[in-house]
């Protein structure tokens, strides 16, 4: 919402344990102070038929009044190069050069390689001007003059660009030439692209050094009421930029254009954007292989492991041909960390029970919940609820319905229902988007982080695409049920699982997963399999889980990376050759394309999605097998005909048993849903030839399967194959057959005896 008071914020750590300190970063507008209260969150969904929103106030030292300010967020990815000795604005003549692939040349002035401060009008920049043309500009503290090319850069075409400033003559020579091969650009070299440019112009001033960092993909400015900011943010890729002393001539520029690294004493700096790669990923450092070693550091994670100006299409990974992967992709709307000042700093008390908590802030007639998860110091229960925080990150601040809602409504088969959170996000583009969205230039969002306010982490949030809660708020329906099921439980998160592996799960007899545990790192997959192999038991109460391959850097658990490849239900598709995670070096995409279909670990895997109605299940012969019939005590032949998510327990997204994809051979196929509409089509990754009639009314593969199988050492997996299952648990205050069945399974799973 624009121009209305708000309080919002984030916790710097999503998972904390007693004794650890968590900081809450809060920003507000129109609210000077707020009352802070620690609350234990019990339920979120306010749908009729359920318990509504439930929180419990907890006395703690977090309580009190806190003054609020409006905090600034620097969006956009760029590279900073500290230049304490002032080498990067050479006295006298110099040349700036780079390879560049611009996606929005017409969006306004953008910096490519700059050491320029617009506020003080000092320094210089090689960039793109308001006409979309390559430009070199410089300021002397009084005025800024520029020399610009006469032809605009074409989007998504690789160019070699350079500006040679001759201090003696007071001239700038601009050089721009496309370097297109059959693979690297949007268009083919068979076309005559009328885009080369060589322009010489006078620069009627002597550049004065800005005395600031050199930037790739932006330039410095001042913002009233805040101070220094980076603006002029560039969209697109930059490859191997550099600065040479002297005004280079055509022969020297031609060598650079061929891709030769600059030689000799004239090199001031040369950032070899393809250097420093490892098999396990690429960090934020950009190496200067020149004489001064002025390395750069990425801000808001410029995307690495991207194809460069010389990509030839044979190798599809930066590990195979690093020299062809020098492209660094910048986006003007990227946000990894808001870097706000801490508003509250609080140490989790030793006696705080593990669970889902929030700092509730109330003031000026508005309220906000900043959610975080408290895990125990050591396990305190036989049961753990694993909150799928990696998947919360993936969906964080999804903006499906803003701007161009595209095909969202066609996918869901449900009218769009917007809430205030959606308008709030619309008014705050700086809070970034989800991995289901696109950057302003159309690139898919591959990084997402929780160091920013996230609407989906608010307990009452509903997703506009369907009008029902999704991810965190939906999982709170499982948490509500656990709170009253008679078993103690601990709360743990994907973040802990990724960092600690199977050791995190080992103390628990049973681990429940959430409604939609879709995003899994390799460490999370391995931890799950190891836990099961050592006798652990998992209740997978969701669907479309264990699906996307994601990666985290070891030291930055708040930020997750995914690349959506050429199969799977995907909101975007990575460009050819950009399939590998910069965070870990792994191939991304869906796990099944790496030989680990979810069926191998969970018995079921993704088969359909649709969001118009949910349906009940009907029992199958295995459910009457005396070894497992305890699961159905008090449950009829048909069950799950109610729930908070679209009126049933089988709905939203569905998973299916399939021996071909690795469902264990001795799996009990206990029940299956049926009657789904044609708004539930069979998923794309299972379709080799498209044909009519792939919706729920004509394709038997459109269904949720309920399965049970045993793993080694007494371990077991029970799966419901449906996202809507969790949201059916609290129906009628928990008096329903879905809750009964879940209780039957949990009661047995916590005991030592075999499950079948």
């Amino acid at each position, binding site marked *: *919402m*624009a*121009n*209305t008071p708000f309080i919002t914020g984030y916790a710097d750590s999503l998972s904390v344990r007693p004794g650890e300190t968590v900081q809450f970063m809060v920003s507000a507008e129109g609210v000077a102070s707020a009352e802070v209260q620690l609350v234990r969150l019990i339920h979120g969904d*306010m*749908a*009729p038929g359920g318990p509504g929103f439930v929180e419990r106030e907890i006395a703690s030292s977090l309580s009190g009044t806190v003054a609020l300010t409006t905090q600034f967020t620097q969006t956009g990815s760029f590279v900073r190069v500290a230049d304490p000795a002032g080498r990067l604005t050479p006295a006298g003549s110099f040349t700036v050069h780079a390879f560049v692939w611009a996606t929005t040349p017409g969006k306004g002035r953008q910096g490519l390689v700059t050491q320029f401060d617009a506020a003080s009008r000092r320094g210089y920049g090689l960039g793109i001007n308001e006409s979309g043309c390559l430009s070199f500009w410089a300021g002397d503290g009084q005025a800024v003059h520029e020399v610009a090319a006469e032809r605009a850069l074409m989007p998504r075409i690789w160019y070699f660009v350079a500006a040679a400033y001759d201090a003696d003559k007071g001239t700038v020579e601009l050089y721009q030439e496309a370097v297109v091969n059959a693979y690297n650009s949007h268009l083919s070299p068979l076309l005559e692209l009328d885009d080369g440019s060589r322009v010489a112009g006078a620069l009627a001033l002597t550049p004065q050094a800005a005395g600031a960092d050199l930037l790739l993909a932006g330039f410095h400015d001042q913002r009233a009421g805040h101070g220094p900011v980076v603006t002029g943010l560039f969209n697109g890729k930059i490859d191997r930029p550099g600065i040479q002393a002297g005004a280079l001539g055509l022969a020297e520029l031609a060598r650079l254009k061929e891709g030769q690294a600059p030689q000799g004493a004239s090199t001031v700096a040369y950032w070899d954007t393809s250097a420093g790669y490892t098999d396990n990923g690429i960090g934020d450092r950009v190496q200067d292989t020149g004489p001064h070693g002025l390395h750069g550091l990425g801000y808001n994670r410029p995307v690495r492991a991207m194809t460069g100006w010389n990509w030839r299409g044979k190798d599809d990974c930066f590990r195979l041909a690093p020299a062809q992967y020098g492209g660094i992709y910048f986006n003007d709307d990227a946000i990894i960390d808001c870097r706000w000042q801490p508003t509250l700093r609080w140490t989790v008390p030793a006696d705080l029970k593990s669970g889902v908590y929030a700092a509730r802030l109330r003031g000026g007639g508005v309220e906000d919940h900043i959610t975080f998860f408290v895990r125990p110091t050591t396990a305190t229960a036989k049961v753990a609820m694993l909150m799928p925080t990696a998947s919360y990150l993936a969906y964080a601040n999804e903006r499906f*319905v*803003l*701007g*161009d*809602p595209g*095909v969202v*409504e*066609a996918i869901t*088969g*449900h*009218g*769009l*229902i*917007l*809430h*205030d959170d*959606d*308008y709030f996000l*619309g*008014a705050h*583009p700086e809070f970034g988007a989800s991995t289901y969205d696109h950057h302003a230039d159309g690139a898919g969002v591959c990084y997402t982080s929780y160091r920013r306010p996230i609407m989906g982490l608010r307990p*009452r949030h*509903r997703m*506009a695409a369907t*009008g029902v809660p999704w991810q965190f708020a939906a999982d709170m329906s499982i948490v509500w049920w656990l709170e009253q099921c008679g078993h103690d439980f601990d709360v743990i998160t994907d973040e802990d699982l990724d960092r600690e592996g199977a050791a995190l799960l080992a103390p628990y007899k049973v681990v429940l997963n959430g409604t939609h545990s879709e995003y899994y790192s390799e460490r999370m997959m391995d931890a799950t399999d190891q836990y099961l192999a050592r006798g652990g038991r998992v209740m997978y109460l969701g669907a479309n889980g264990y699906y996307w391959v994601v990666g985290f850097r070891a030291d930055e658990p708040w930020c997750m990376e995914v690349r959506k490849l050429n199969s799977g239900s995907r909101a975007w598709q990575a460009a050819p050759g950009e399939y590998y995670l910069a965070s870990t070096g792994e191939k991304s995409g869906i796990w099944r394309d790496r030989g680990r279909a979810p069926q191998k670990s969970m018995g079921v895997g993704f088969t359909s999605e649709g969001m*118009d*109605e949910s349906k009940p299940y009907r029992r199958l012969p295995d459910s009457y097998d005396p070894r497992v019939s305890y699961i159905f005590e008090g449950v009829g032949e048909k069950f799950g005909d109610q729930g908070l998510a*679209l009126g049933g327990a089988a709905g939203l997204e569905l998973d299916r048993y399939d021996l071909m994809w690795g469902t264990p051979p001795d799996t009990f196929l206990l029940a299956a849903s049926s009657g789904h*509409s*044609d*708004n539930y089509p069979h998923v794309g990754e299972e379709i080799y030839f498209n044909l009519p009639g792939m919706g*729920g*009314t004509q394709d038997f593969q459109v269904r949720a399967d309920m399965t049970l199988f045993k793993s080694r050492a007494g371990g077991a997996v029970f799966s419901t194959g449906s996202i809507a299952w969790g949201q059916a648990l609290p129906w009628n205050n928990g008096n329903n057959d879905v809750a009964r069945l879940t209780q039957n399974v949990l009661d047995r799973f916590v005991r030592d005896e075999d499950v079948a």
Partner: protein
Amino acid sequence: MTNTSLPADRQLLVYARFNEELRAEMRPLITEDLIEEHRRRPLGQHSDTLMRLLNMFRRAPVYALYSRTPCREFQVIRLPVTEGSNPTPIDDVVYTDQNEALHAVFLRNLEDLMRSGGAK
């Protein structure tokens, strides 16, 4: 050489022609029974005709709902929702039943469909 009265993306011309033909095919299929079918149950599996009609509307949505009080109050809005805008329902009608509100969106879509036919 270049005809500037045509869009840079010529496919838009095909899209427009396709839409026009599709909408012309759909208009004669609108009956009181079809409208009543939607009113009774706006979500889920419908008759083939209603499914086709809804598929068409859903591929290019013009209206949506705004819910000031989740699950309790619904108003019809027009898409797209531009960044920085506040909710601006197209009228003062507040539906307390979600299905009624979804049907109101359907009626708006129908009205547009029939009007665009009349203008021809």
